[in-house]
């Protein structure tokens, strides 16, 4: 499972972000940047078979 961590100094909390089917956290960099700016550490994940996570099938271009 691919997880990207975007830490800030003295965070007010942590946000775990789970994108939808077919999506990757890479599409949400603006959201992640904004959450960092308001003081949250962000853990952005890719569901299995999507984005930078490992594939469930032998075809790397299919998400399922």
């Amino acid at each position, binding site marked *: *499972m691919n*997880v990207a*961590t975007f830490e800030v100094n003295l*965070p*007010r*909390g*942590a*946000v*775990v*972000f*789970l*994108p*939808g*089917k*077919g*999506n990757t956290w890479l*599409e*949400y960099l*603006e*959201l992640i*940047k*904004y*959450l960092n700016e*308001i003081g*949250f*550490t962000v*853990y952005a*994940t890719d*569901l*299995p*078979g999507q984005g930078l996570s490992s594939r*469930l099938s032998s075809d790397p271009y299919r998400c*399922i």
Partner: protein
Amino acid sequence: MSDAQRYLKDFTEFMDKSVLLKDQPLYFLGHSTGVPVGFEYAILNPQKFKRMLLLSPLFAIRAQAFLRVLRGIVGPFLGNDTTLPFQKNPHFDKVTESKIDSFSLIPRLQWRWALAKNLPNTISQLVTKGWFDGWEWNFGDDTRSSTSTAAE
């Protein structure tokens, strides 16, 4: 072990080893079909997170119904695994449900690129409304929080 069980196990290990060790207020943002994994985790570990927000591009309904719809969509993806926590316990306790809100993104912005662009604005509204500070919030007629729905 099914793909769904394996992923929930991996996710739980990630949470225990990377996130919870830092003892910080924890929020989940689940967008569309990304919700169920966080939701399953929340049912198993309601004491470990502060609040969860389910973001839907289509509608805002109470959390349980929201997840039922999503289950129908992602069921095949997750293998329709009936051993997962939500399938075993669809009537999770009110304490857990009270921590979960659902929010409809503007329907006309349901295209993926627009959603990604719109989310910072959405979260900005949440901050303005005090969602992260535990305040009740209301975005208008087309949205409602599951917290208030659960109390009806």
